[in-house]
């Protein structure tokens, strides 16, 4: 899966969590929590959605690694490379 495709799908998830925000304007190297009004419930819902869409289960101990959009992309990319599989029927 290409970076841009991962980003698009991650932005889609974020858009659902924070519909009031323009996620297309997010800076990729700035902490998401500084750009979006999200709480721990949003974070949990995000992690659940990533699991559903990418087949990537993010353990809690990895949460601190996922501060920015770039962090997320790199993380998902690496985990997909480790053998995690996107949801059945997805583009890849």
């Amino acid at each position, binding site marked *: 899966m290409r970076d841009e495709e991962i980003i698009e799908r991650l932005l889609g998830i974020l858009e659902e969590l924070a519909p009031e925000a323009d996620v297309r304007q997010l800076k990729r190297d700035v902490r998401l929590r500084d750009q979006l009004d999200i*709480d*721990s419930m949003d974070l949990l*819902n995000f*992690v659940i959605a990533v699991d559903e869409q990418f087949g990537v*289960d993010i353990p809690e101990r990895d949460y601190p690694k996922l501060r920015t959009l770039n962090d997320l992309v790199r993380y998902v990319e690496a985990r997909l490379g480790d053998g995690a599989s996107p949801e059945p029927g997805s583009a890849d």
Partner: protein
Amino acid sequence: MADFLMPILGADMTEGTVVTWRKQPGERVERGEIIVEVETDKATVEVESFVAGTVEMILVDEGRKVPVGTPLAVIGVEGEQPVASRPAAAVPPPSVAFPAPAPAATKALGARLRASPAAKQLAQELGVELSTVTGTGPEGRITREDVEQATKVLTRPAEEAPDRQTRMRQAIAAAMSRSAREIPHFHLARDIDMSSATAWLAEEDERKPVAERLLYVVLLIKATALALREVPELNGRWIEGRVVENRAVNVGVAISLRGGGLVAPALLGTDRRTLDDLMRGFRDLVQRARAGSLRGLEITEPTITVTNLGEAGADSVFGLIYPPQVALVGFGRMTERAQIYNGEITPRPAITASLSADHRVVDGHRGSLFLGAIDRMLQEPNRL
């Protein structure tokens, strides 16, 4: 027969709009079954029936806004005479306390119209159908003022109606002003070591599927609920000059809404539910609160409020109680703090728990015991 009234869905509610009737005349409704959706300033609320029976009449049409306490429908209880065969006097007249128009009521009740000559003349001049006007005169007689009032309502420009956000701020302003005005608050705080709770939670979540993971706020909610068993007066309501203790513990959870504002619906039966069940309920509650779709009991039944502002960065919380509740528990940010543990200074995760309490109901001594009980509960998370 039972009148189904526009409920008071919170201390800040003065009126509500009937959005959708879930039951129609002739349909059976069970106790606890949703009968109508009502829009308040804060949310669209699914309202349950408090009696079982058959819906005999709908008195207020969808789309109409009426004050709290206005009869919305008549429910025939089994074994009772149907409304249609009752004498007209048995049907409650429109309440003078709530003079806003309820045109469907007049039509549905089928009562003979009584109107003063001046009212009839004015109605004719303005083209107002008298059957759509609620009379506030003697025996429900329609007065000239009633016709004028009905005209004002009908012709009120749309732009005068404040938007949802404004109405929410107004509702919060009303409730919090009342709280600050009427309740003699006192505040207590206690730092709580969260080492045991966080370690236990990490272990639990490690072995759970992602969709079943717990958030630590659920531990705080459950600990609060269990602590209320030890200091039950904090689980009360101040009504007409005295405290009424609640048997059920229904912790209301403050939920911030997208775009501003907040609601604090209840996790019903909090003290009796498992952490897993509370977590499922909490997720569902947050989702529905933010979508503006809550249930009546969730709005009317909170017996205490918990607010966890630590997530937003506050170190501690000293909030205002939501009347008629008598207490609010706040949790601040979890941080690593230097603590003396086994004779050594070590960094340990901790939060500051605070209590806002109504001094008419409880004193500082009991409040301190309550915070101590929360602390104790959190040191044994496996027992929550």
